């Protein structure tokens, strides 16, 4: 069994010390008021004692934390008083991630997390090991994970040759191609998937060049940015309000918040809204830029490995065998410049809060992304079928109802507030036909030979490729209205856990017969794919996740 990096002892000592010093602090503060024997003057002494106790606990925690690689499992034993020893079978490991914060990069340290499919958080987190140890672990676990499923001779020899080289798992940035990669002139071939003849075990699949990174940052909006700005506003409300008032003054805003007429308050509102939007957008751009800075994706044997980040560096591996589905995303801006992104979903939890979904290609030319997805899944170019034309009528009615609610709200507001011309709110009806049309035209599905391809959404369009082999359940859903119109929605559930932000892949509003047909096909192809895989396993072939 191994220990963590000695520096972890310092980190744990500080962490537990700072935590524990509060316990006697609050205890003494509370008791001093009620019990005569306790004096508030003890505070400095008891706080120091609390800190010392916590620090000692942290150091013991460090000494009692052990991890090790065994032939079949990755073991972690931890706990000072209550011991927990956990053995994670390699075949259950979804991905291994290495994370480095700014300070950790300076000190050459890293955090390693191991994910399996179950549970809401990481199965094992090694808080602070040296970077080289992190890379070694990632490499070892990955190799063993691949080794468990593989008993074919080809793989065995490639592993043997790997063993011959000492610690061959160089970090990606040591690659020679990095040197000639200048931001001004990104070579076009850089972004194409290709083999690296000099590096048999590691194949570069994709690297985000600076142009793509900029375009990606500029065209992506992150809800996290909105949350961050909201958080900032919550904590520095007064300062920010003063700042907003000052900014609006050149345009006729009020002198301060108390004095002002309707018009100057109106100006303040409009200017502040514009400022808010601009600031949120800039935060979002900066966030995306820092997160996806220097992104690269590679393939080692049966795993995808990626690295990214400006301040905090992430590197992770996704076993190809564990990929559940692949999704191409684009928003209207990205469609306009003909770019798109590619995500892969696994059943585990990634280093982001975004569930088991990892960005494989944050942004690249749409044609390139499609080719990449096709190479990855071997899916044929999909010929999308549209949902039933009745669906468009349905969206027309649905959006009209929403517009009617908006107008009703304006009317209700006019009853309590001096709002003249509330009926101008009826302009929202003008947006109804285009909205219904846009929703309709971006829906599509394709029932392929080995895959189901589902496209949906306008603001954030997602095209998901689901191998039949990965289907968990299929449901045909019909609401009261859908039954009346003779249409149905087909929900195809896979084991990928990205559901908080993304809905389960659904084919919306197709004719009942088409939905039932796709339902039957999905079930049938799942069974035949399973049989095929079983045969292939017996014959000793390695089968990709398709």
């Amino acid at each position: 069994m191994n220990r963590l990096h000695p520096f972890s002892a310092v980190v744990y000592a500080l962490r537990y010390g700072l935590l524990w010093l509060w316990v006697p602090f609050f205890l003494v503060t509370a008791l001093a008021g009620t019990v005569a024997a306790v004096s508030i003057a003890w505070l400095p002494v008891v706080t120091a004692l609390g800190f010392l106790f916590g620090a000692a606990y942290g150091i013991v925690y460090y000494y009692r934390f052990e991890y090790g690689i065994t032939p079949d499992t990755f073991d972690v034993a931890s706990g000072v008083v209550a011991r927990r020893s956990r053995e994670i079978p390699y075949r259950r490991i979804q991905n291994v991630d290495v994370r480095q914060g700014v300070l950790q990069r300076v000190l050459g340290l890293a955090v390693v997390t191991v994910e399996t499919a179950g549970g809401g958080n990481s199965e094992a987190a090694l808080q602070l090991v040296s970077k080289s140890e992190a890379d070694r672990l990632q490499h070892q676990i990955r190799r063993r994970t691949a080794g468990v499923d593989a008993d074919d001779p080809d793989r065995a020899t490639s592993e043997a040759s790997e063993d011959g080289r000492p610690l061959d798992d160089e970090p990606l940035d040591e690659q020679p191609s990095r040197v000639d990669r200048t931001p001004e002139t990104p070579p076009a071939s850089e972004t194409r998937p290709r083999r690296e003849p000099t590096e048999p075990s590691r194949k570069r699949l994709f690297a985000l060049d600076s142009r793509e990174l900029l375009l990606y940052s500029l065209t992506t909006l992150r809800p996290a940015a909105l949350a961050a700005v909201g958080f900032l506003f919550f904590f520095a409300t007064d300062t920010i309000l003063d700042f907003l008032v000052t900014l609006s003054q050149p345009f006729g805003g009020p002198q301060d918040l108390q004095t002002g007429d309707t018009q100057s308050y109106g100006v303040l509102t409009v200017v502040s809204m514009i400022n808010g939007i601009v600031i949120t957008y800039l935060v979002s751009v900066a966030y995306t830029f820092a997160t996806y800075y220097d992104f690269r994706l590679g393939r080692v044997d049966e795993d995808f490995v990626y690295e990214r980040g400006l301040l905090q560096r992430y590197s992770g591996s996704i076993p190809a065998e564990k990929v559940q589905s692949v999704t191409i995303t684009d928003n209207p801006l990205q469609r306009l410049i003909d770019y798109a992104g590619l995500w892969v979903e696994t059943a585990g939890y990634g280093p982001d809060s975004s569930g088991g979904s990892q960005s494989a290609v944050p942004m690249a030319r749409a044609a390139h992304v499609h080719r990449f997805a096709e190479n990855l899944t071997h899916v044929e170019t999909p010929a999308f079928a549209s949902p039933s034309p009745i669906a468009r009528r349905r969206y027309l009615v649905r959006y009209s109802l929403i517009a009617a609610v908006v107008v009703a709200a304006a009317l209700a507001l006019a009853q309590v507030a001096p709002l003249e011309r509330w009926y101008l709110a009826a302009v929202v009806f003008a947006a109804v036909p285009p909205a219904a049309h846009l929703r309709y035209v971006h829906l599509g599905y394709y029932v392929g030979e080995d895959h189901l391809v589902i496209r949906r959404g306008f603001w954030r369009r997602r095209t998901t490729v689901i191998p039949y082999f990965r289907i968990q359940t299929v449901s045909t859903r019909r609401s009261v209205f859908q039954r009346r119109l003779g249409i149905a929605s087909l929900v195809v559930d896979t084991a990928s856990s990205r559901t908080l932000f993304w809905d389960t892949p659904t084919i919306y509003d197709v004719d009942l017969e088409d939905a039932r047909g796709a339902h039957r096909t999905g079930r049938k192809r799942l069974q035949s794919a399973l049989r095929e895989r079983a045969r292939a396993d017996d014959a000793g072939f390695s089968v990709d996740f398709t």
Partner: protein
Amino acid sequence: MESLHPRIRLLWIAQTAILAAVLGAVLVAVDRWLVPVPTAGLVGIVAVAAVLGIAYAVRLYQIWQFELQGDALYLERGVITFVETAVPFVRVQHVDTQFGPVERTLGLSSVVVYTAGSRNADVRIPGLTPDRARKLQDTLRELAVESEADDAV
């Protein structure tokens, strides 16, 4: 296709009755502390809610059906949104039988089938006699083991 045990209607009607009672209590509270509600209106609202609930329970019972097919457990259910779900046996992670206090009094039991999926990850078949539930659990378990896929999520 197999239907649920008729007594499940009693369970669902009991649930509706509880909901209607809660609604009535809320209305009484509103009447007492906020706005006066005419007694006739109060009784009327509760009665309508109860009748709707009973109609829903009866209809739901008529619609609820399930079947063990060649490759999957197939279910049909839903009054407002009608859902046909297929749960392939290979995807069954584990099977539970459950019964709550009310179900127990009525001599009923539920079978819950878990998959690794994200949504609809657990499928519940309510309103089975305990014997039928145990038999279904055993059958499903056997079918799941038989068709075990070695693809390990």
